[in-house]
């Protein structure tokens, strides 16, 4: 032998540096991946929040209003019918024009009246109907400005652009600047956004209608898919005989979880609307469709949770003489509940963000009224976002981002709820 044989420790040393290097490399790759993910997450949040945050604010103008009896109540008998159908548009026009007495010409006089939001008309009507003694009174009220001026005030209109490329002409900008100088312009919290349904006018459009639609839909989905999913999981895992039929059902459930959601929309259209005659655009149908979509997720998560319950607990229960159902209800289900809840919340979160199947069942409609029940026409939050992003008005894009923030807030709230529920169940050891 030329060289003495190396000892074990020497041989190990020789490979050690290479092994350590491989480990470091792997760790650094992991760190880089996590970092990259975080960067994109932050970018997304910064983008959404910076675009959407201004939507929580709305520019208001202070208008001098004269509730002219000649217009509102020519007969002077305070009849609600007359008060309700009066020409409040004329009041608004007169009011805005009184701020710009020098404006002449048909077009300019028409344009200047459009400074105030179209909703002002309804606002005045509401005021008079609520308090008829306002007739004949002169007062000053704050009303939202039209969305173009709102954008101007928020700095979203580039004044250096050639006039033809802007939505607002120099003249209109001049009017608005004069109102600012007179102290008649103010930025206020946009409560309308959280109270109203959709509208053609961005300054009147709100998220509440869509939020209620989503809420009703999730109520339907949750109250159907959770009990059904848990019962199915329990039956398949604990009671069903192991044979061809059950394994076929299992395979199909797993496949259903991977079916594109729009297919469920088609099914909903064909079955719930065309066959059962349920109303279109209703959260009930939306909820049913989303139930079909979430069930496989809940069933799969539920079965995984059931299998992860230690067999020793089952044996303990059976060994003491518990029946199978007692074993499941008293011991297995409580231990499986955290896992089942996680699956359910994941399913619900997916359902909350789902758009495609809702398009198929007519929940893309333009819905102004806030839905009051599961059968009223409604949209859902993601559909509303989709509709607004599709609009040409810059103010709607801003609101879409704000709606995304609301949607994310909903999701975070749901996840928080999941964590709380899990803690509560896990605290039972």
């Amino acid at each position, binding site marked *: 032998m030329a060289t003495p044989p190396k000892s074990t420790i020497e041989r190990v040393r020789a490979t050690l540096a290479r092994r350590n290097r491989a480990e470091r490399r792997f760790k650094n790759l992991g760190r880089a991946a996590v970092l990259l993910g975080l960067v994109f997450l932050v970018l997304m949040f910064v983008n959404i929040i910076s675009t959407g945050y201004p939507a929580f604010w709305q520019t208001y103008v202070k208008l001098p209003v004269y509730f002219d009896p000649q217009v509102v109540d020519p007969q002077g008998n305070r009849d609600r019918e007359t008060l309700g159908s009066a020409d409040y548009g004329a009041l608004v026009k007169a009011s805005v024009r009184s701020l710009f007495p020098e404006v002449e010409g048909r077009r300019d006089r028409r344009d200047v009246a459009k400074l105030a939001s179209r909703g002002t008309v309804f606002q005045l009507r509401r005021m008079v109907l609520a308090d008829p003694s306002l007739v004949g009174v002169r007062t000053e009220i704050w009303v939202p400005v039209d969305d173009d001026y709102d954008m101007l005030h928020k700095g979203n209109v580039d004044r250096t652009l050639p006039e033809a490329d802007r939505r607002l002409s120099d003249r209109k900008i001049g009017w608005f600047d004069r109102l600012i100088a007179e102290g008649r312009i103010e930025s206020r919290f946009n409560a309308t956004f959280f109270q109203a349904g959709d509208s053609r006018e961005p300054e009147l459009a709100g998220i509440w209608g869509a939020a209620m639609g989503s809420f009703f839909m999730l109520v339907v989905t949750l109250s159907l898919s959770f009990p059904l999913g848990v019962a199915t999981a329990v039956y398949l895992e604990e009671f069903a005989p*192991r044979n061809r039929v059950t394994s076929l059902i299992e395979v199909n459930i797993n496949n259903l979880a991977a079916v594109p959601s729009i297919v469920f929309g088609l099914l909903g259209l064909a079955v719930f609307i065309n066959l059962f005659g349920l109303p279109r655009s209703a959260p009930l149908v939306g909820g049913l469709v989303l139930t079909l979509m979430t069930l496989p997720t809940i069933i799969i998560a539920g079965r995984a949770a059931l299998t992860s319950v*230690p067999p*020793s*607990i*089952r*044996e*303990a*229960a*059976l*060994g*003491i*003489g*518990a*029946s199978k159902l*007692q074993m499941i209800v*008293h*011991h297995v289900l*409580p*231990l499986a509940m955290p896992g089942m809840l996680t699956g359910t919340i994941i399913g619900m979160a997916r359902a909350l963000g789902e758009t495609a199947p809702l398009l198929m069942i007519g929940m893309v409609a333009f819905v102004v009224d806030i839905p009051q029940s599961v059968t009223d026409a409604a949209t859902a939050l993601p559909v509303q976002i989709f509709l607004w992003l599709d609009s040409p008005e810059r103010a709607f894009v801003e609101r879409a981002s704000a709606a995304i923030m609301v949607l994310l807030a909903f999701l975070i709230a749901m996840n928080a709820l999941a964590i709380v529920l899990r803690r509560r169940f896990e605290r*039972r*050891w």
Partner: protein
Amino acid sequence: MAHQPGVAVMEAGALEFRAAEVEDTDERRESRETVGTPFADDPRMTCRDVNVYYGDNHAIKNVSLDIGREQVLAMIGPSGCGKSTFLRALNRMNDTIDGCRMTGEIRLDGQDIYAKDMDVVPLRALVGMVFQKPNPFPKSIFDNIAYGVRIHGLAESKSEIEGIVEHSLKRAGLWEEVNDRLDQPGTGLSGGQQQRLCIARTIAVSPEVILMDEPCSALDPIATAKVEDLINELGQDYTIAIVTHSMQQAARVSQRTAYFHLGDLLEVGPTDQIFTNPIHPLTEDYITGRFG
């Protein structure tokens, strides 16, 4: 004592065998007939020609054995020989295993426990079981013991339940250690305490027979000693069948011992005789440590 006549019969049987004893021949070594005294007078449980299969695996082969009243029967044998399987046949826990079949007859106080009209729920209350790994419910100590009482409706009132819980914990020698924290989780106890909690849980429903599957194999020596003392004491009033891989344990707690070998019951006899003077050559190999 109730088992005395049984022992007498066994000793007679053993003598008979000794008289016929021949050398350790191949023929005797190959024999899978049960030798010794598998039967007892006035038994609590009787097993006749019991066969258990897991699918094609013939795990228990033609076992006939009596379990005497108010005595401890130890089952020993190399691992995988079917001790647990046989034990689980005694309270039909094997029913829960897919593909597990059983033939033959097992009677508890003369009643066929595999009869069509026999319900496993009352059976398992009568034949309680303590498992290898302590498996308290993830509930409070109190609820662990009260659970069986509640589901079987054994108590009329809350105070009666409390009485049963206290009595069972005292029987299991655990009362002193836990009476100030009955509302604490049972899973928070030490391994030995957990196993005694499981025994208390079993006796709370007043069973007639207690089956124990290597109840000390997950415990340290001190906890083991405590559980063995407990088994010794319970053996006065309960019929106990205990599987153990420790021959010392079998010697310490049991009056009779059964030796299983690859699914066959090779020998049954009084414990001291099995350990000092086994009949079957394979039993001798096992207890002298040549096999297993």
